[in-house]
């Protein structure tokens, strides 16, 4: 792309319009590389040799996008590098590609800031994401190779994986292995927390109670979820064979969000067993299963009540 632009600036288009493409591909060698990043503002002259601006501006211009894309609302670009493609590359190529991507990312970030400063919309911001994605893929490929090498040499992956270890107080705790200045046998604080000393046996009762408390909490939570799942299955009977799966789904969900039944739903009457549809075919045939969550539930209830009143009269 850049090359074509370069040719456009340097070659007078009107003069060479009649010459076919093959003809001026022969002149390709004669065009000198342009050393500046900014194209000249004035119209390129007819003579090719005077076309090139000789002064080199500065390496700081690598931070800026000096192509003509600045005024466009959409910039044409490719996809990111896939993992399978990067796995075929040598380490040296990956190293080179990393720096290309790094410079590209810096350029995009500067341009993003500039657009923000000028109150303009940054065209196709997904370019940054694509560069990031390919950088991430390079990192994973390098890590894979590192692990393979370590496994061959030492039989271990060499990854610093976090683990859950028992502290000297008898409780389990998250432990992230990391480099330390002192060796562990000299490190007083490490010895106090992670060392060999263990709490005396009279603290077992506290450990036991702590575990019991936690188990009780888990039990309460599962019971709460089980109740909810029972309601769900009553309402959607075609799920009754997949109760465990529904339980898991709800457990996943309630780890993140606290379950709170809104009052308008909590006040509503429960469906009794004879009101539910037990057969799946029946469920499909029946069609209008009473949905407590529907928006016009209250309206239907009122109509029903009025009907009942009329009957009584």
């Amino acid at each position, binding site marked *: 792309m850049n090359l074509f632009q370069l040719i456009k600036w340097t070659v007078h288009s009107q003069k060479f319009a009649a010459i076919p493409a093959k003809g001026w591909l022969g002149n390709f060698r004669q065009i000198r590389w342009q050393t500046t990043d*900014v194209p000249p*503002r004035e119209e390129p002259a007819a003579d090719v040799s005077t076309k090139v601006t000789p002064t080199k501006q*500065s*390496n*700081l*211009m*690598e*931070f*800026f*996008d*000096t192509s003509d894309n*600045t*005024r*466009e*609302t959409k910039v044409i670009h490719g996809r990111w590098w896939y993992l399978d493609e990067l796995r075929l590359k040598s380490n040296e190529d990956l*190293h080179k590609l*990393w*720096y290309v991507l*790094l*410079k590209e*990312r*810096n350029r995009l*970030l*500067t341009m993003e*800031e*500039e657009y923000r*400063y*000028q*109150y*303009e*919309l940054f*065209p196709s911001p997904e370019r*940054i994401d694509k560069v*990031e994605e390919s*950088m*991430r893929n*390079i*990192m994973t490929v*390098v890590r894979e190779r590192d692990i393979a090498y370590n496994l061959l040499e030492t039989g271990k992956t060499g990854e610093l994986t976090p683990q859950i270890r028992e502290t000297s107080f008898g409780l389990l705790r998250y432990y992230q292995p*990391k*480099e*330390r*200045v002192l060796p562990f046998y000299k490190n007083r604080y490490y010895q106090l927390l992670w060392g060999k000393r263990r709490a005396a046996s009279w603290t077992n009762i506290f450990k036991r109670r702590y575990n019991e408390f936690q188990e009780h909490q888990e039990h309460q939570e599962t019971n709460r979820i089980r109740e909810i799942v029972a309601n769900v299955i009553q309402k959607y009977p075609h799920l009754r064979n997949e109760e465990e799966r529904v339980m898991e789904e709800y457990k996943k969900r309630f780890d993140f969000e606290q379950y709170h039944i809104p009052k308008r739903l909590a006040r509503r009457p429960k469906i009794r067993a004879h009101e539910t549809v037990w057969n799946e075919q029946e469920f499909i045939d029946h069609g209008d299963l009473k949905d407590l969550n529907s928006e016009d539930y209250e309206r239907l209830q009122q109509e029903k009540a009025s009907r009942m009143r009329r009957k009584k009269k």
Partner: protein
Amino acid sequence: MRLPANLQYLYKSMTPRYPKWQPGDPKHRIFFPQFWMRIVRPEENRPLRPNVVRFECHIEMTKNDIKQYLEKLYKIETLDITTIIKQGKENRHPVSSEIIDPDPDRKFAYVFLKNETFTYPDIWRGQKPSDELVKDERRMQTASEKQKATNLYRPGLSTWFR
């Protein structure tokens, strides 16, 4: 917004730690640096000297890091570097006054160039993408004004009388 590590941008996430000092003081080389830098305009009413560039960079970069980064990757020679960390704004809830969605802290570096001057370049060359939009808007406005002039509300006059 805080995201899990696999979804966070690389340039916003933390870099791996440097190795600890070892006897013999071997020099460490980073083969895949995750640092980023970008040139930003100087602050308002704070003009800079011609040989100074204002950068924003990864918050964990030291002065030496910045120097090496510019020298090795961009071949830019530096005299001196000063850095400052600007605290992000604490957005507070208007009622409960708790901090919600605070902006991250940012590090800015002022790089003093050697034998070189820098002014922020005009990459727009007198044209901005919004210029055409503004023209279009004006055109629309004039058209609508003409339309309005024909459809003025004149009580007592029938619609066929124009």
